């Protein structure tokens, strides 16, 4: 292939890529409007319920003195777990130089950012006195696992915001430059926004150099922070003496559970954007296959963690713990427990072990089950333990000794979920959902590889010729140009 042709080829490809990525930011279809409208309705209703809760107290929820933490705290653990997706896909795959990560980093990082926002507010929703939240600053004490949570979640939040923003800079510049040519609504606002967010990006060599350097540093910093986050989230349970929580594997158990449910959610995000924004060309079945393998590996580790978490105490059946486990294995929570274990451990392993199971449709279905199951699992970690205290539950009002979230909790939680969808939707309507420059880089690398292969072939052919006609001209070696 001719080198000139190839350059034009790349240029075309990149142009098409940019077009594909920026297209969704220019349209605002009827469907999107309806979608956003319905999300707003759910959020509005949730807000109403929350205000009701603020005025009447947490008594309007189903929580009572034994089950003093319920759906909100379970959701907190679940959302914070999801937020590990960004770190996994972006940082770990970046650091291990997995080329296939390129088209999915942006959505993973976004998911991290959004689920952290909405996960982080769960404990505040759950507070009895949110009006006194500043007491945490005035009187905060380092002994409390809750303070560890606040510190590490805030750190992770800042980190992941930077991590989301940094690779957006070149794309923002691209948006800014492209905006002039196309015609769009809110042009002025968008121009201002892109210019602001591009923070003077011109694409000079030194800028690229700095960006890459910062990205490397951030990648290294963010991984331990992410691990610390879910570890200390588990500590709010593990630091108590309660049966079922008083466990030394809780830290790693939570981290693995988080990575695994997070990456399942990344798959869901990938599938959704691929379909909605016609990115089939970039997010291919191969990507699903590869990330399917990652989820499979995580599921296996998660299964191993489950074994440790349940088999060890189940073998010993110590008094208090035994009562809890009886309830989980064969009591009132057994259906939920076994469905959950089957759906989130056995089934995914069975499906994803086969290449056919890593095709897009079965994978997406599995991931929906994993995500829902992970949520239920958090609930099964929080609630049954609270219903099995050391002292017996005797002569209490019937509402105390059972728990199922009521409409207030469901509405507020649904509003938070809707909030996540809303932010993601708005984001995708403003910014490209793939890191354009990263994918471009990938295309370049791909082409370079091809060039090298062709070069080698050419050389071999030439050498073979040379052997035959020793006086033939030497082919001048072609140097690879990266930019």
């Amino acid at each position, binding site marked *: 292939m001719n080198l000139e042709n190839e350059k034009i080829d790349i240029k075309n490809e990149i142009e098409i890529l940019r077009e594909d990525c920026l297209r969704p930011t220019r349209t605002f279809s009827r469907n999107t409007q309806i979608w956003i409208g319905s999300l707003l309705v759910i959020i509005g209703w949730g807000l109403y319920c929350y205000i009701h809760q603020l005025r009447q107290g947490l008594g*309007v929820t189903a929580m009572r003195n034994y089950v003093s933490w319920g759906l909100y705290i379970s959701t907190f653990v679940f959302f914070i777990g999801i937020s590990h997706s960004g770190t996994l896909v972006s940082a770990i795959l970046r650091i291990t130089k997995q080329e296939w990560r390129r088209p999915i980093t942006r959505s993973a990082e976004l998911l991290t950012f959004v689920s952290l926002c909405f996960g982080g507010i769960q404990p505040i929703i759950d*507070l*009895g006195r949110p009006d*006194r939240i500043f007491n945490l600053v*005035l009187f905060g*004490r380092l*002994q409390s696992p809750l303070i560890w949570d*606040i510190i590490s979640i805030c750190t992770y939040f800042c980190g992941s915001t930077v991590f989301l923003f940094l690779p957006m800079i070149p794309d923002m510049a691209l948006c800014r430059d492209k905006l002039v040519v196309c015609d769009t609504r809110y042009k002025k606002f968008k121009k201002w926004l892109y210019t602001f967010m591009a923070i003077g990006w011109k694409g000079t060599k030194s800028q690229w150099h700095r960006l890459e350097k910062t990205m490397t540093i951030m990648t290294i910093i963010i991984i331990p922070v992410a691990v610390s986050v879910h570890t200390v989230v588990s500590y709010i349970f593990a630091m108590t*003496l309660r049966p079922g929580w008083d466990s030394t594997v809780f830290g790693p158990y939570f981290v693995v559970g988080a990575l695994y449910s997070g990456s399942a959610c990344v798959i869901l995000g990938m599938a959704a954007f691929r379909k909605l924004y016609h990115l089939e060309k970039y997010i291919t079945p191969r990507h699903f296959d590869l990330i399917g393998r990652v989820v499979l590996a995580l599921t296996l580790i998660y299964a191993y963690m489950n074994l440790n978490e349940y088999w060890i105490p189940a073998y010993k059946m*110590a008094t208090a713990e035994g009562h809890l486990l009886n309830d989980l294995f064969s009591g009132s929570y057994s259906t939920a427990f076994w469905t959950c274990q089957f759906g989130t451990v056995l089934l995914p392993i069975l499906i994803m072990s086969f290449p056919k199971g890593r095709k897009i449709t079965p994978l997406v279905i599995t991931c929906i089950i994993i995500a829902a199951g992970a949520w239920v699992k958090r609930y099964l970690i929080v609630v049954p333990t609270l219903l099995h205290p050391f002292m017996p539950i005797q002569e209490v009002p019937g509402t105390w000794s059972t728990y199922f979230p009521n409409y207030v909790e469901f509405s507020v939680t649904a509003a938070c979920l809707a909030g996540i969808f809303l932010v993601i939707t708005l984001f995708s309507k403003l910014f490209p959902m793939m890191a354009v420059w990263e994918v471009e880089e990938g295309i370049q690398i791909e082409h370079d590889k091809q060039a090298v292969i062709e070069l080698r072939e050419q050389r071999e052919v030439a050498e073979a010729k040379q052997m035959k006609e020793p006086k033939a001209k030497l082919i001048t070696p072609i140097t690879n140009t990266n930019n």
Partner: protein
Amino acid sequence: MAEENNKNENNAGTPSENAGRRNFLKYGALTAGLTLVGGSLLKVFADNKEQGEKMKVLSSDGKVYEATCNQLQEFRPAPVSNAEARKGIPNKKFVMVFDLSKCDGCKKCTEACQKMHYTESDREWIKVFTMHDAKAEAPYYLPKPCFHCDNPTCTKVCPVNATFKREDGIVLVDNERCIGCRMCMAACPYSTRFFNWSHPNSDQTAAIGNLPYSPEQSVPRRMGTVEKCDFCPDMLRQGKMPACVTGCPMDVIYFGDQNEDAVTNASGVTVKLSQFLEQNAAYRQLEELGTEPRVYYLPPKNRKYPAPDLKNIEKEKKEKKHIDMDMSSMQM
């Protein structure tokens, strides 16, 4: 305190007896002379210059009486400052001992406590359990207050130091600082803490809603905060016993100061603590958790009452009010 409350009740409840005094007392003398029940009352006085103004009063047994202002009398000394309440009573180490052989499960301690702290009936700061550790073992009653642990799991996890351990051993909650995270409820292995899920009911608000607050008396309660047994430190400051101790007709509960090595029960029997514990083979609940409770139990040996009726528990279990646990092997 119980007696004194009764007196108040009578004062409030039978106006005829006090008619003479009412006429005698002048409004100004009343306000000036008394350490009064609280701001609300003061406000009532200020707003209504008339002497015979009627108002509602909640007595210590939870009934609402109508009384004229000038019938009211001092019934609580002004609470100590927050700083003092956090420090505790100097040179004391309070302990409680339950002699389980005498407890017949009448729940009078719970009642006395609820009166004292204006708690609603479902909130039992001191709760009497019917225990049956194992089939072969004897059933018995177990009254359980807050254990005021020396290694309290609850205070360790509080993010804002709203619940704290004092020098005199008492663990209190400051409901003006508590943010309602309920971390302490999750952490307490004895399910001792209660949360104010809703606004305190209106009777209560009318009666005590405007008392000056101190962690020592735990009232007025506030929505969205945690409360629990406080060992009645406001009584202790007056040199009196906690409400449950004096409320127990069976003389089960002994209370005292470990530094003095003496505990006393409702009938005024004082015993040497160390000897008492040693000779009766005292134990503490869930000792293996390392919480170091300040509350001791004497085993229910030679019971002086009929054994608890376990049928009740069976019935409750069916009604799902009761999640029973085999408690054997829990007490080491």
